[in-house]
């Protein structure tokens, strides 16, 4: 009797296991797993290298007799340009220095900020890439002073990879309308210029 009961229990367990297996198989059949395989994804080198070429190409004075322009030295780094000392004698006198901004990286470079470097001891007003300090205007423009082209460089401007942009660092006397306004002495200023910051995207 006891043996029969044991046999029966065993039978029930087997039947139950069988049922569970059937349910599992049926459930598994009603599922599909879909695969999306990406063999390789390569990120190429990403380089960011933009700024001024550190040698000015051309110096353009407002008149041929203005030796001051070639005598004055400018300091150029990748991100800044400034004139060490300038002494401009008369109204409309100007010195222009041609510069190259080059993007040697493979990312687009966007000008994110243009910050003025004020000459020592001067009070200045700044508007983007134009700064005026006591009758001397500093600017970074598309063309040299006196060319008639007043296009400035601006934040948001983009230099594409491998491309260059030619700009001019202009320093000129402004705000002197006639001889009576003209200062008795040359206008001297030291270390005026700009810093340009770039961001990549």
């Amino acid at each position: 009797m006891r043996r029969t009961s044991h046999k029966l229990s065993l039978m029930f367990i087997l039947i139950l296991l069988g049922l569970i297996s059937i349910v599992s198989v049926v459930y598994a059949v009603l599922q599909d797993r879909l695969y999306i395989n990406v063999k390789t994804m390569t990120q190429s080198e990403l380089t960011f290298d933009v700024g001024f070429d550190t040698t000015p190409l051309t110096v353009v004075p407002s008149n041929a007799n203005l030796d001051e322009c070639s005598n004055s030295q400018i300091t150029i780094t990748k991100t800044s340009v400034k004139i060490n000392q300038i002494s401009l004698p008369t109204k409309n006198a100007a010195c222009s220095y041609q510069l190259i901004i080059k993007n040697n990286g493979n990312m687009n470079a966007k000008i994110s900020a243009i910050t003025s470097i004020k000459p020592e001891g001067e009070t200045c007003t700044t508007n983007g890439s134009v700064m005026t300090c006591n009758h001397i205007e500093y600017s970074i423009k598309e063309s040299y002073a006196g060319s008639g082209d007043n296009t400035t460089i601006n934040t948001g401007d983009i230099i594409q990879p491998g491309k260059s942009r030619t700009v001019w660092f202009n320093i000129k006397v402004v705000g002197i309308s006639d001889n009576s306004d003209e200062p008795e002495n040359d206008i001297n200023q030291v270390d005026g210029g700009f810093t340009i910051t770039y961001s990549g995207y």
Partner: protein
Amino acid sequence: MKNKKLIYIFTIIIIILILIMAIAYSALSENLKITYGKVNQNAETWDVAFKSEIITPTSSGTSTSGLSCGQATASGLTVNIEDTEMSKPGDKCIWKFTVENKGTIDAEISSIDFTHPTEQECTRTFGNSVDVCGNITYKLLKDNSGSTSSRIKREDLINASSSEEIFLYAEYTGEEINSSKVIHTSTKFSILYSQK
């Protein structure tokens, strides 16, 4: 003796139950007709898979070189995407797949899994349908907008005898500078479809 009888009865009931289940599910790959009086009921079938096709991805971005989106081959349960390369932020590759439900049972997504590349851990969001691996972001979407609001997600439905499109949207989103190539291998998505 009485016990024995009872056991026979139970055994017979269980056998009948098994037979019923077997009949109900045995024909998942073919149509059977079960006739009961004047009512004909088609047996249900389950068949969810990719539409077999060669997929040419669309690419866009600012790269003049270094952007190459690999062709994809869809067949059965698998899509294989060939070697792909992106070089700059903004570069994109978009693949469009079609998932077909040829069965008679509505199917829904019950899970999305992501296997990160061997070389790099990834940040997983939106239930694995958006994953950021270094400078590359992968998205599984319902359209090619690139918007995470159109991501595929659990419980998305494919009705019986219909199909849905899935877009794998890979974009160079990061700006982390790397002086040499970074290669990701064996990145994988898996999407589990189950009976609704």
